[in-house]
């Protein structure tokens, strides 16, 4: 009976995340993006379109703000009032930050977006009723809604183009919210292989599409639980911790020599994506 279940496992049901006394068990997928390496070339974004069956909406709908890119490259200009942007632009690849305390998850009325045991924010398309509350509550605005039925919209996927669609990823119909999944289909496949061989997924065995495409290797992705993984080492070196909301870099006055940070930590979302500051030479 569920009430017995409720009472028996009470302490388990009363645990929150992220906490140090109940860490992730096997996997905690996370990312590190080196902004000094990112050149803003958009290869990751196109890779994401290819991997995840993202519709190309066309000019008119793009203009209406209905674009679907799960991974967008943002371009910021330094605001110091110079005549020229003589320190270049600042690029930032932005996708779902897979927050540990994701504001989108609590507000979904249907429970279509949840936190998986691997520490990823899941989005179950066929459970989605389209209330868009998750998007309303997302501070990064990285959730994308199917405003139209793109599969049946002209020139989104003409018959020939449908052959390109990835069978491991649902094609979303109208009225469904979608977002970056950290390429869950690739994680699932890698975990499947690993289980066949009775081991855990090795570092580098699963790559996200964006990571795979990135010509400068600016993106690293892996299992934070595995201390030997590149991403765990990067996080450790930058002294960025999942369950902290102020990282070493910002903890002290004047900062440290580190450059790892997460965006909008003050909102206590505990994102799984760490960014490394862009660097500019001071001698020129």
């Amino acid at each position, binding site marked *: 009976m569920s009430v017995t279940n409720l009472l028996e496992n009470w302490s388990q049901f009363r645990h929150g995340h992220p906490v140090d006394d109940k860490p992730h068990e096997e996997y905690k997928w996370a990312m590190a993006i080196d902004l000094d390496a990112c050149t803003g070339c958009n290869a990751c974004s196109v890779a994401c379109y290819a991997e995840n069956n993202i519709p190309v909406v066309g000019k008119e709908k793009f203009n209406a703000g209905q674009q679907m890119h799960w991974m967008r490259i943002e*371009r910021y200009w330094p605001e110091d009032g110079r005549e020229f942007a003589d320190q270049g632009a600042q690029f930032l690849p932005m996708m779902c930050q897979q927050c540990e305390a994701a504001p989108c998850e609590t507000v979904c009325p249907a429970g279509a977006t949840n936190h998986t045991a691997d520490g990823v924010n899941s989005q179950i*398309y066929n459970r989605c009723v389209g209330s868009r509350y998750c998007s309303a509550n997302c501070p990064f605005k990285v959730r994308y809604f199917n405003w139209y039925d793109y599969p049946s919209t002209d020139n989104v996927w003409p018959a020939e183009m449908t052959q390109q669609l990835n069978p491991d990823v649902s094609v979303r119909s109208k009225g469904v919210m979608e977002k970056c999944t950290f390429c869950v289909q690739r994680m699932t496949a890698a975990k499947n292989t690993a289980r066949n061989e009775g081991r855990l997924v090795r570092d580098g065995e699963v790559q996200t599409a964006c990571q795979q495409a990135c010509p400068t290797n600016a993106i690293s992705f892996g299992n934070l639980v595995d201390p030997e993984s590149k991403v765990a080492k990067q996080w450790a070196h930058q002294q960025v911790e999942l369950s902290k909301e102020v990282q070493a870099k910002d903890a002290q006055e004047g900062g440290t020599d580190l450059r790892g940070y997460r965006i909008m930590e003050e909102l206590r979302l505990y994102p799984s994506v760490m960014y490394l500051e862009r660097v500019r030479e001071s001698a020129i």
Partner: protein
Amino acid sequence: MIENGFNRRDFLKVLGWGGAVVALSGCGNTSVQDGAEIVTSYVEPPEYALPGIGVYFNSTCAQCDAGCSITGRVREGRVLKLEGNASSAINRGKLCGLGQAGVQAHYNPDRVREPLLRNGDKGEAITWDKALGLINEKLNGVKGDEIAFLTGAVSGHVKVLLKNYLEALGSKNHYAYDAVAPSVVRAANKKAYGVEMPRLRLDKAQVVVSFGADFLGAWVSPVHFSQEYAQFRKGSDGARGVLVQIESKMTLTGANADRWIAIRPGTEGILALGVINALDAAGLSLPADVAAVSKAYNAERVSKDTGVSAEQISKLATLLKARTPSLVIAGGAAEGYKHGSQNAAAIALLNRVLGNIGKTIEAPANVPFPQVAVTTGNRSSVQALNDSMANGKLKVLFSYGVNPVFTAPAALKFQDNLKKVSFKVVFANYLDETALAADLVLPLDSALEDWGTAVPEYLVEAAQLNIQQPLMEKLHAGTRGTGDILLALLKQRRANEYKDYEDFYSYLRSAVVKNKSALGGAGADDDTFWGETLSEGLVKLPASNGALSAKSSAAGLVLPAPAEEDSAYPLHLIPAVTANLRDGRHANQPWLQESPDPLTTIVWDSWVELHPKTAAKLGIVEGDIVEVTSRSGSVKAQAYLFPGIHPDAVSIPLGNGHTALGRWAKGVGINAFSLLDQVVDKDTGELALNETRVKIGKTGKRVMIVKDEGAAGGSQAGKKIAVSASTDEVELSGEV
């Protein structure tokens, strides 16, 4: 008995595997259905093909000439996604957006599907036999020098067949055309280093100074350079490389520079000499010939001519002197002037002065089989072709892989001259502007269906022969491979020589296998060697690095004074080559159209970049439709105010403005090629892309620019989103 026949294309068969195929609108149907979908299984499966499991095939990317190796993920006989092939030294498993959009070139619904013969204004579908017969017929009685073949850069065995075909026709008229190639820099390099394209070791350099070379975006081999750039930035033990970009319009590379220096258009060479002068002042000993030239370029004069402050010049010299080795690159922006060759030569002098030659500028690998090495394209070839067409000297013209009607500068009147050629055959994937002007259109296989080989121009470590192989069954029965067509045409002329080859595949296989000992497959069984070659996707050619001859001399280097003010056409037009659209051949691939331009974030359109100061002077605000007029033409497009452009310049991206090509390209934006004046570089005769002067007028109309950037316009509004630090604030050594 079960047949053991080995026909590779059977394996590539598209498989209708109900559950594995994505039904569109997957979220709609929630119930279990019985008997609604059909499952098609293989008739005879290859060993490795198991429904539900992806298979990976290696091939070569054909989206640009960099020659990246690709790996196609194939499931149930469909290629789903292109990724980089890790065994290629060029792209090491990485791939840019343009390359990945190769699947959209392949699945494109606007591909030509059968041979089309002109019938009035329409194309009439005909059979291949008829098409090939018609070519044979039209060539009868035509003299060799009345026939011309226009291609883009071409290499590998297609080049061999092409050459042989022209030979068979008795023609020497092979025009290799590339509208945006760095052809002036090639010529200058040849002079300065003895090779057209030396190997640039960004990874070894401490400082890179690039004069307008967009090596991270669209220049030569961007994926490779991006990887080297990453190493250069990481440096060894935290000694992060410094990138200085000098150009009049910010490119993607400029946007990533530590210091982006806006320079008056065309004065790059002056600045290079100015830096040499400053280096001299800083105590670097200069060769006498260089010192003789550079001494006139004191900081004051250079600063006045180029608009770059003296302080900046001396800082740059100090940096270059302090951190070695460095690397100076001359790129597209520097070469696009009447005096482009001189600019490039002056910039090359910097490398000599800094002692970079041999350190960061290395000799490229030699290609041991020159017959397959790349014939690079240039712009003067299309001028030459145009001249001979205008003279009425040409009777038959073949065109393959280029779209001169779209890319030739308006001043050439290419389209009109084309009409003077009585029979024009265009090998085409799409009905682009040139194909529409043709008499006969031969539909090509897509790059993912075709066989071929390619040797990239920019080689890394060793030379390599890239293999291009079909990743899946042909989508349209009516298309043919380029090699197959050339072979068929050759058979018309030299039947005996080629009778052993049933198709291009057998030709290619025998050509590669014949040379297996030279290709590192000595002693291997033919089938094994061929199988391994295919599975690898490339063959490393035996290495024999050439040497550089550092013979660049300052003697005779004369740089003209900055261009005079032109009161009628006050602004310099800089046509921008963007990473996605290049010269426009990819404009019909929707991922590329919707992928925002990195710097402006504009999608699905063209725009006119203006410095806010210039715009203020002209009373232009963002979104104003402005008319840009040159001596050769005029276009109307939306204005975008951009802090990365010199106030004397305006920039329009190339690639859009098609009147044909397909549903996603037609009518999108404007064609900046149509503005270009016919001004050429004095030494090479190459069209000077940046030499066109324009004026700008408002039309009174205004639109909302369709771009990804929101109302904040690239401001972080005081939030810590994309954070920057200067090198003295961070400690990079020890980073993972």
